[in-house]
């Protein structure tokens, strides 16, 4: 399956290579570099590149390309998914997955890669198992190891490898038994200029941090499970129970994990928590443009909209912007033409606005793009879909755990300011109107 792996940094250096079968010369990466040159943006490098004798499958994470070399038919998603799992594992071990972190821990990285694949086929990818085999480096452990000469490598087969619950190791003990769940929802929306929603959908995840002794068996039930249109589970969740009763029943992994990700479809009415009013105009012949943008809360169920950040890619012709925010601060990068406005919290009484003028390149023709506006925000203690956890029960162990559930809503890909609805036929009429206005 996976023959070799090369890690390539942003400047095109191969800084790590690992081979699971016979050695593949690193010159195979030349094909990758070629493709990279052809692609205008880093993310436009095709994930699958055929070369005369091999196929290169790559993912880009944290500005590092993970390039897997394969030789024969294999589902591409298999490799891609695995590479992402590798990155997740690195992140889990080193906190960050940067070039520096990988170079610093090159031995651990190598040991990990050795355990994760055997002959190119995944062997152990469950983080619990890996952590028993190879202990994550911490400063304390490194010190102890240098003094006592003990190692980072486990000598016994991790219990998870053989059990029916490979994600949980046996003999877990805590003095404080706690189980916390975060329900985090992201809204993806496209809103047109007039404020009506083109598409909106909610992606939610339930991230858990479970520190419980022994082998607890948890069930989590919702007040309104029908809301969930589409779900994907951590392998620990019992499918059949969900199918039959809409209850999440599982033996949790130890520590942090993503229990569930779900989707609330665009068919359901999605409440949009903020609205944007904006008016950006350029005039033919004039070197000035007007910029006017107002934000306001909408359907937030009384919760405050926080950490609002507005960003917009202004047209290339804009030289500078001279704006006046009613709150927060704004920056405009004249090189990338990126306008960002850090609004902070929205006060429903006094709506934040950003007004002013933009100066254009003299003599340049009127920019025709309608800049899109991306908005980020957070709302604490609310899941915008209305999803509510009903109860969490524990079986199989005697003690009483601390339980907690937190809700949060975030903006995902939230775009506003696309042009109004029109069909191709309207173009003519609109062009006419504009001409009339100008005249």
């Amino acid at each position: 399956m996976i023959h070799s792996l090369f890690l390539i940094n942003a400047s095109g250096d191969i800084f790590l290579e690992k081979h699971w079968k016979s050695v593949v010369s690193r010159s195979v990466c030349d094909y990758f570099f070629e493709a990279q040159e052809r692609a205008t943006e880093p993310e436009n490098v095709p994930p699958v590149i055929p070369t005369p004798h091999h196929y290169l499958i790559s993912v880009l994470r944290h500005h590092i390309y993970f390039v897997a070399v394969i030789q024969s038919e294999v589902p591409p998603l298999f490799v891609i998914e695995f590479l992402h799992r590798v990155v997740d594992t690195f992140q889990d071990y080193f906190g960050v997955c940067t070039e520096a972190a990988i170079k610093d821990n090159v031995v651990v990285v190598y040991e990990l890669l050795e355990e994760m694949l055997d002959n190119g086929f995944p062997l152990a990818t469950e983080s619990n198992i890996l952590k028993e085999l190879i202990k994550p480096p911490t400063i304390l452990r490194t010190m102890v190891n240098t003094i006592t000469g003990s190692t980072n490598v486990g000598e016994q087969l991790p219990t998870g490898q053989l059990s029916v619950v490979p994600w949980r190791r046996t003999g877990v003990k805590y003095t404080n038994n706690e189980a916390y769940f975060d329900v985090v929802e992201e809204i993806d929306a496209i809103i047109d200029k007039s404020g009506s929603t083109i598409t909106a959908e909610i992606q939610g995840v339930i991230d858990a941090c479970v520190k419980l002794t022994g082998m607890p068996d948890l069930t989590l039930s919702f007040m309104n499970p029908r809301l969930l249109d589409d779900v994907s589970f951590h392998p620990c969740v019992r499918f059949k129970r969900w199918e039959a009763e809409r209850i999440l029943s599982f033996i949790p992994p130890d520590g942090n994990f993503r229990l569930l990700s779900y989707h609330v479809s665009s068919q359901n009415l999605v409440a949009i928590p903020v609205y944007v009013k904006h008016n950006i105009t350029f005039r033919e012949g004039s070197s000035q443009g007007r910029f006017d943008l107002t934000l306001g809360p909408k359907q937030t169920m009384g919760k405050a909209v926080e950490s609002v950040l507005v960003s917009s890619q202004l047209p290339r012709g804009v030289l500078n912007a001279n704006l006046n925010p009613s709150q927060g601060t704004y920056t405009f990068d004249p090189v990338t033409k990126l306008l960002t406005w850090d609004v902070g919290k929205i006060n429903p009484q006094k709506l934040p606005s950003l007004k002013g003028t933009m100066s254009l390149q003299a003599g340049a023709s009127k920019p025709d793009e309608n800049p899109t506006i991306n908005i980020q925000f957070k709302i604490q203690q609310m899941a915008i879909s209305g999803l509510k956890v009903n109860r969490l029960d524990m079986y199989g162990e005697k003690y009483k755990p601390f339980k907690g559930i937190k809700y949060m809503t975030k903006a995902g890909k939230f775009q506003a300011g696309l042009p109004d609805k029109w069909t191709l036929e309207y173009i003519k009429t609109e062009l006419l109107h504009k001409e009339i206005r100008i005249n």
Partner: protein
Amino acid sequence: MSASSAFNDEKGGSSSVGEPEYGHDPASGGIFSSDYKRHDDLKEMLDSNKDSLKLEAMKRIVAMIARGKNASDLFPAVVKNVACKNIEVKKLVYVYLVRYAEEQQDLALLSISTFQRGLKDPNQLIRASALRVLSSIRVTIIVPIMMLAIKEAASDMSPYVRKTAAHAIPKLYSLDPEQKDQLIEVIEKLLADKTTLVAGSVVMAFEEVCPERIDLIHKNYRKLCNLLIDVEEWGQVVIINMLTRYARTQFLNPNINESLLEEGGSGDKTFYGSDEDEDEDEEEKEKKAEVAAMAKRKPYVMDPDHRLLLRNTKPLLQSRNAAVVMAVAQLYFHLAPKAEVGVIAKALVRLLRSHSEVQYVVLQNVATMSIKRRGMFEPYLKSFYIRSTDPTQIKVLKLEVLTNLANETNISTILREFQTYIKSMDKDFVAATIQAIGRCATNISEVRDTCLNGLVQLLSNRDELVVAESVVVIKKLLQMQPEKHSDIIKHMAKLTDNIQVPMARASILWLIGEYCEHVPKIAPDVLRKMAKSFTNEEDIVKLQIINLAAKLYLTNSKQTKLLTQYVLNLAKYDQNYDIRDRARFIRQLIVPTEKSGALSKYAKKLFLALKPAPVLESPFKDRDHFQLGSLSHLLNAKAGGYQELPDWPEAAPDPSVRNVEVPEWTKCSSREKRKEKKVEKPFYTDSEGESGPTESADSESDSATGSESSSGSEESGSGSESEESKEASESEEEEEEEEEEEKKKKKKDLKKPVQESESEQSSEEEERKHQRKSKPRKSESESESDEDEESESESSQSESEDSESEAEVKKKKKPAESKPPPKPVKKESKKEKKEMSLLDLDDFEPAPSPQVTPVNTFLSNSLVTDLEGLSLSDSVLSPATIAPSSTLKSYELLHRITGEGLSVEYCFSRQPFSPDANMVAVQMQFTNNASSDTKNLHIEDVKLQSGMRVKEFPEIELLPAGETATAVMGIDFCDSTQAANFQLCTHTRKFFVSIQPPVGELMRPVFLTENEFKKEQGQLMGMNEITEKLTLDVKCRNEHTIVQRVTTAANLSRVPCGSDKECRFAGRTVTSGSLVLVTVATKEEGAAQLTVNCEKMVIGTMLVKDILQALTQ
């Protein structure tokens, strides 16, 4: 390596500009230093006694390897540490070895013995990692060692080691493909493994080594389906992909029938479809009509195994692993009935939220699917809307999907979307959008004019690329109805002054030339302008100018004659020979000269023929002949190792091959069925290596058909009826079995199209009636195909799963019950054989070697019993009267082929081994099948677990060709089932062989009285006692048979007993002399209880398993 290191140096040089060398990087602490002199101190560190120094050195070396630096000169220093106690050092040495062993083969051999020792380690992790490294060392010399290690590990107690063995199979295969046959045997054995841990890996090995041996899957199919959900994610992907292929060869196309209903749907399509679509539909309709006609004759019923697969994979759509979801999606796309395919859309749309690489792959697949099954994704149209933040390649793919999904109801929304995309700053994307608009316009005639107008508007766009792309698309659209759009052509003619993009200019010129009759005034003028700029144009434009000139010359020679001459003259001296050639050709063709040939008469026809409108179709059309989700599909080219997805078979192969129990030959009544069986024959002969069952099957079915013909051949219905009545009388039987029956009946329905339709229908009706009456359950299982019932039927499924094993046991009893005694005796015994060979592959079976030859022994066994049964000898017959030699099972030690003519079999003679009482006597039989004599047969290089001992047999000095010799050797197995490995040497060759004892041979009989037995048993209670309930095999319900079977399984002696309900046996283990007491207490109707008391618990548990098996079959 030298090439790559050269490359490294180069790279290093270039990187020093932008990037600091690692050596100077303070963070890496000099680890990456490339100074070769430092290798000396690394060597020193490796030679030191301190583990910490060694570790430090190894870490540096591994860092060098990671960096791609050559560290091969350290090989001797590193390989010395392979046996280091420190596990981290050891692991790093392994890493090093695997990397460089191929380059330094001789030195690498030094390490082999360490791994061989590791293979025997009590710690399973060490065993597994020893096997991993051993199999990763790509040195051809050690192939036999690897083979042996793999075979051994395949029957290891630890599933983890077995998994590693499965991983090692493809490694060995890639090293030496000639081992294929042996490896297939191991694969076959591992496929029968019941643990989820092994399943994924062994299927992977199967796919790499012998994907064509689909017959190996039959017996494991249901098990794999049922295990699937518990297999780890990566294994799931591989298994699902393999099962997709399997299902395509074994089941019928579930959509045969639905083509009838579909008719309405396809009518729909023609409504908005374009011309070429219609053509296709015509064809399709014809095909469908045919298929439908076929379907009418032959109602489709889904094979329950097919349903099982679909049902068990469905929950995996909820997996967090995108690869699993994709695998299930492709399985549904390729295998599911049309009505059910829809479920995958949601899951695939969910994947679009993942990383962009995942999106890329998923969108490719969705694009292919959306061509065939547009309806599936229509509800999710908005999910494919493009965001400005998407990478271009994602945008283009989404555009592709949107275009595929467009129909006359949603086209306005889609066009509105496209409208916004055109304003994007990403020019490649804009170009793709314009093409997409063009495709929508060709496919949906209602919006053709709207699109055309829109595109014409784009001609005044400031961006030249946009204009150029529009021109190209407009050109294609205009070709459909040129007469309506002469003003557009005029408009485009004007554009020639401004547009510089060659492709666009060429397109415009072609258009004007093609439709010069619609714009008679403008065309000559355009030619005039072009003639002026001819020399400065690009080649494609020049060609089109010549083209235009030629066409104008033919239609309007008065005005353009001179211009054409001029253009042709210019072209004559062009630098490009294509253009020169073209000019010469055209001159000859159109300008009439006295010499001009016959062709010039047809010039007009040649140039001004009506050209068919171009077909704007998706690049993803017809990609679905590749298995979706595969690399080949993504690249639209066959990748190495890609397995074609076969077409559905015309008629389903025999489903009974998947039955894990013995196929019930007696049931097959129709001639067709018999034929199929015959086709299947090679499978049995292949895998079992015996022709017994097939022969008997043939004779059986012969007799069956005979009986049927006597009852009247025209009534096939009556046959099935009688069967039904039989079934009804056996109503107390397990449900599972009834379902099985039902399957067969359904199959029979399928097989009867040849019969008169009338009688067919009636019999079917009867069957229906019968089904409804006889069990309410049936209706449920019939409606299984309904999606709504899914959960219900699922629960019933799981129920039946639980009872499966039980049912199996019962089923095995059945044939014996229903058969008249005298004739089938032989047949039964043969069946027996088969069962045994299947179950031999059981998890805990000590599994001596795959080539166990149970044939003789079992045949003789059952013959013995049968004969005894006939002679009505009384049951007090002591076990001693059964001659041990007749019940001895012989095992193969060395096969004739591997032994180059020398074959060796061994058996446990159960005689005391005189030189040493603590040894088990192993009797070996040497046969020299070669044409030459074999000399000096002896044993060498004995490798044993600690504590084990071997007493070799005296050297056989000469074994003439064709002769047979026997010898006895003694092995002290230390009361364990560990194998004894040694080399069997002749004067020319050495063979690695191993002897592994079944647990029953590790003991010798002792004689106890009833009281002694009870006393000893009383002392071995609690942990030392293992009790198991069982149901005795039908043939094994008399005391005598029980005694006989137990003593066959284990070397024990009978203890006299007052009660006839109990049989007692006693023995001592050979080495330690621990007592082994066995009690079999029989109850009513074959129920029994087996108790084993033994101080050695491991022996006890294994013995229980063996005896259990002996008694229940």
